[in-house]
């Protein structure tokens, strides 16, 4: 029983990181109606950027976000303008391929510069822990969770308290009407992609401290992130966050209760069951099925 509780706590803490990564992905979908299959690769890229700063300049990985998030934001804007914006016809299908190609390209470049050895970012807080009962929580999970809360909070503030945030939400809700009030939806899309990348960078740091990773780590990440955003309802930020927490808690509890081998499987089963009942996901708006 205690073990289940521990697993649940751990699930919430790691779920926070996935919530952050998934929020960027679902934001991109909401604004542009594209699935960014390259999101996992961008998380890994973010992890590598922090890894370099940590290894070569000895910068604390959390501090390095001051550099990596802006860099990734700019990169995101560039990627959007160069690769996503030109897609006109059939953008839903083509964007999957384009972002997949980007993922492969990033994987290749990372492999070229860093080889494909597994690396991990280390910091004093990745093994230091404090006790809760007879269970100990590592500081990195707490810090990571707090970081995710802070960034998610900032995103929500931006979305709900600033004019530009309003423009992003407006674009998500009704693209045509947004254009009507003079919102430059192309610009909004580019910025949204940038924000998605910045959150990927932040998620990448926590991922990089709590997991060993190599350039190929993105496949596993993206399959989870996609499951999370579909479960939450495509384009719903709230849904993505809640789904991430639910998924990771269920996964970790399954791991201790039944067996770790079935944990991932349960992850997908939950998705299938939810979709059977609610094809639009937990918080998705029902898309009109016909006409």
């Amino acid at each position: 029983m205690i073990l289940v509780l521990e697993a649940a706590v751990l699930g919430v803490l790691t779920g926070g990181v996935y919530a952050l990564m998934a929020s960027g992905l679902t934001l991109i979908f909401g604004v542009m109606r594209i699935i960014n299959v390259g999101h996992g690769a961008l998380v890994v890229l973010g992890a590598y950027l922090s890894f370099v700063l940590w290894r070569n300049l000895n910068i604390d990985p959390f501090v390095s976000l001051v550099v990596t998030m802006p860099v990734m934001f700019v990169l995101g804007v560039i990627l959007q303008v160069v690769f996503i914006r030109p897609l006109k016809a059939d953008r839903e299908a083509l964007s999957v391929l384009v972002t997949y190609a980007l993922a492969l390209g990033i994987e290749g470049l990372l492999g070229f510069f860093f080889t494909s050895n597994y690396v991990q970012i280390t910091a004093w807080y990745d093994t230091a822990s404090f006790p809760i009962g007879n269970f100990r929580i590592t500081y990195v999970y707490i810090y990571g969770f707090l970081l995710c809360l802070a960034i998610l909070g900032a995103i929500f503030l931006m979305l709900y308290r600033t004019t530009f945030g309003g423009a992003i939400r407006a674009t998500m809700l009704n693209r045509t009407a947004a254009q009507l009030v003079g919102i430059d939806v192309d610009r909004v899309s580019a910025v949204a992609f940038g924000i998605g990348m910045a959150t990927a960078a932040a998620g990448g740091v926590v991922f990089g401290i709590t997991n060993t990773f190599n350039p190929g780590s993105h496949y596993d990440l993206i399959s989870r992130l996609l499951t999370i955003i579909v479960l939450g309802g495509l384009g719903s930020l709230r849904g993505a966050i809640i789904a991430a927490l639910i998924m990771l808690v269920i996964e970790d509890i399954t791991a201790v209760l039944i067996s770790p081998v079935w944990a991932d499987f349960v992850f997908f089963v939950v998705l299938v069951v939810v979709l059977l009942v609610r094809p639009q996901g937990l918080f998705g708006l029902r898309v009109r099925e016909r006409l």
Partner: protein
Amino acid sequence: MAALLELEGLVAGYGGGDILLGIDLTVEEGSLTCIVGPNGAGKSTLLRVVSGLLKPTRGSVRFRRESIAALSPRAILNRGIVQVPQERSLFPTMTVWENVRLGAYTVRDRGLVERRLAAVGETFPIVKERRNELAASLSGGQQKIVEFARALMLDPTLLILDEPSMGLDPKTRTTVFNTIRSMNDAGHTLLLVEQNARSGLGIATHGVVMESGRVRLQGPGPEVLSNPEIGRLYLGAA
């Protein structure tokens, strides 16, 4: 009164045939011009041309003497021609206040935005009263009025309303048309496209009846409405 918008010999259509077959029309500054006509008469096509979404095949579109036929929708918006579309265009899960504020999205001057917000709040009490409610929770007529308020945030030179009465019950319709009227009284130039001829022409300073891509009747609103010809235009020649 000076001519604000002038259409001359306008011919336009999609792909195959032309829908507009030579339109001559002038919208005077300060007027409330109302275009009515049966569906398929070409009213929506006309609006698409004015807002820059459709390029005319022939003829000219001038706004304050400048030809705007070749301009992009954004450029036309920047010149002060703002449109409230036929379908609901509020952002449903944003508050009324957020919706209205977004109307001035392109305005950089914060003070100006605040002043306009205040003014719009005065003109449309509902915007203030229900400022923190989600747009989706408003009734159809209330949503229409919020859309007007949002459009006014840009202080448009010409405000185009596309079928504002669509889907509204008679009582709400009256409120909406009263609001339109008062906007005109407050000095806004309005171009109204309406299916409901009686409501539209009833308040219009200038009425226009279109049919099959042509202007069939025009004159002061109430006069056009009382023209016996209008029934025939709607229900077809005997």
